[in-house]
C-alpha cells in the first residue's frame, strides 16, 4: 500500500531535464522576480514572460496541457487581492453583470496580480516536473539555502509517504470496524466521532514522534554528529551557462522595457 500523491516529476532526457538543478532553480527564481517587478497592466510583457514556460514544456516534451491543468492551483491565493477593485481610488465603472462599482485602476491591478501569479506558478511547475526531488534538494543546497532547512524538506519528502501510508492504515482499520446492525442507529454521535478522529490524529502524531526518535538513532548509529554531509556538486556544463545567460538577458530585457514603457 503506497501513496504517491506528491510526486510531480515526469522523467525525460530533454535539454530541460538535463539542465543542472542549480541553473533551473536560479532561472525559476529570476523569472518569478521579473514577473513580480513588472508594473500592472503591461499585458504584452506578461505574454512575453508566458512564452518561457510554454517553450520549456515544448522542449521538455510534456505538452502545455499538463502545465495548464496544474497551473490553476495558484488562483485561490491570488484571490487575496480581490479587495483591490473596490478599495483603490480613481475613476470607477459599474459592472453590467452584478451591478458592482469597481475602480478601473484597482481592477487592472487585480487582473495583473492574478495573471502574474498564474504565469509564475507555471514556471515553478515546469521546475518540479522536470527535476527529481533529490536533484532539487542538492540544487538548493549548492545555492547555499541553509542546510538545516534543506534537510528538513528532504526528511519531510521522505516521510510524508510513510506517514500517509500510516494514516491510510488507521482509516482502513476504522472503516473495517464501522459496522451496522439493523434496528440500531449506526455512526454514533458527532461528538463521539470527533473524539475517535481526534484519537487517530493523536495516535498518528505519537507514532511519528516515536519514528523520529528511531530515525535519529539510525542516523547516530552511522556516525551522524549534527552536521549532514553531502557530495560536492558537479561542475556546470557549457549548455548550463548558455541557458542561464540567455534567459537572464531575456528577462532583463522584458523587465527593462516593461518598466520604461510603464503607463
Amino acid at each position, binding site marked *: 500500500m503506497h501513496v504517491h500523491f506528491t510526486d510531480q516529476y515526469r522523467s525525460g532526457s530533454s535539454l530541460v531535464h538535463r539542465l543542472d538543478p542549480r541553473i533551473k532553480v536560479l532561472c525559476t527564481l529570476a523569472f518569478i522576480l521579473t514577473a513580480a517587478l513588472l508594473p500592472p497592466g503591461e499585458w504584452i510583457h506578461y505574454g512575453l514572460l508566458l512564452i518561457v514556460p510554454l517553450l520549456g514544456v515544448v522542449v521538455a516534451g510534456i505538452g502545455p496541457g499538463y502545465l495548464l491543468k496544474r497551473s490553476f492551483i495558484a488562483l485561490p491565493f491570488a484571490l487575496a487581492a480581490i479587495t483591490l477593485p473596490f478599495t483603490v481610488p480613481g475613476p470607477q465603472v459599474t459592472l453590467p453583470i452584478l451591478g458592482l462599482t469597481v475602480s478601473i485602476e484597482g481592477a487592472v491591478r487585480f487582473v495583473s496580480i492574478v495573471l502574474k501569479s498564474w504565469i509564475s506558478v507555471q514556471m515553478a511547475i515546469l521546475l518540479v516536473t522536470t527535476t527529481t526531488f533529490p536533484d532539487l534538494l542538492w540544487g538548493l543546497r549548492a545555492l547555499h539555502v541553509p542546510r538545516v532547512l534543506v534537510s528538513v524538506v528532504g526528511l519531510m519528502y521522505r516521510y510524508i509517504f510513510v506517514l500517509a501510508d500510516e494514516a491510510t492504515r488507521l482509516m482502513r482499520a476504522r472503516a473495517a470496524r464501522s459496522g451496522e446492525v439493523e434496528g440500531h442507529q449506526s455512526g454514533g454521535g458527532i461528538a463521539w466521532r470527533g473524539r475517535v478522529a481526534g484519537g487517530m490524529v493523536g495516535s498518528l502524531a505519537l507514532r511519528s514522534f516515536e519514528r523520529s526518535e528511531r530515525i535519529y*538513532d539510525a542516523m547516530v548509529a552511522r556516525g551522524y554528529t549534527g552536521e549532514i554531509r553531502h557530495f560536492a556538486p558537479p561542475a556546470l556544463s557549457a549548455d548550463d551557462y548558455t541557458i542561464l545567460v540567455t534567459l537572464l538577458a531575456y528577462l532583463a530585457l522584458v523587465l527593462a522595457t516593461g518598466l520604461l514603457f510603464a503607463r
Partner: protein
Amino acid sequence: MHHTIDVSDLKFSYPDGHVALRGVTLSIAPGEKVALVGPNGAGKSTLMLHLNGILTGEGDVRVCGLPLTDGNLGKVRAAVGLVFQDPDDQLFSPTVFEDVAFGPLHMGVPEPEVRERVARALAAVGMGDFAERVSHHLSAGEKKRVAIATVLSMDPEILVLDEPSAGLDPRARRGLISLLRELPQTMLISTHDLLLVRELFPRTAIMDHGQIVADGPTESILNDPELLEAHGLERMWSLADR
C-alpha cells in the same frame, strides 16, 4: 587478541523506570555468527543499541577492545554496523545512493572512494541497479537489502541486525538468508525465526527478562525443549520427529 564484542554485567533502565537489562554478559569472537533469541521485551533491541553507544547503561561494553567513551564513539560506530528492524527508519535519505553514502561521508572518506564503497555495498546485497531509486518505492525485501548496504558501505567489523527476517515473504526471506550466508562479517542478530537460526548461526544465546539465560551451540540449545518452552520459544519440529 581482543574480542569483537565484550559486554560484562551491563545494566540499563529506561527513563520511565522500566528495567530492560539486568546484568548482561556476552562475548563475541571475530568471525563468530551469533543469534540472540527470546520473547518480545526480553531486552534484545536494548542490548543492540548499547553496542553502538546509542544507549549507555551501567557496566562494561567494549567493541574491538575499545571501551565506549565519547572519544571512541566514532570508531565504535564505524566498527559496528547496526541495522534497525524497520527499514523505513534506517533509510531516511531521498535516494538509495544517498542513504548508502551517508555512513562513509560521515567518516570523512574522500568522495571517489565513497562512490566505490556505495557501488560495492549495493552489489554485495544484489541491489546494484537501484542506486538512483527512491526508498519509498522499494519492496520490503529490497528495503531490507538496502538497509544492510547502508552499513556495509562503512566496512564494519561486525553486523548487528535487529529481526532481519521480520515482515518478509518466503521468497524475500530466502534471499535474505543467502545474503547473510555470503557476508563474511562477524554477525549478531536478534530474531524469532528459529529456522533461520538453525540454518545460519552456529551459536545461539537466549535472552529473557534482561538477562542472557543460555548461550551455546545452536544444535544443543534448539534441541532442549524444556529450555525453549521456559523462555517462550517454540520447540522446533523437524520432519524426523514425525
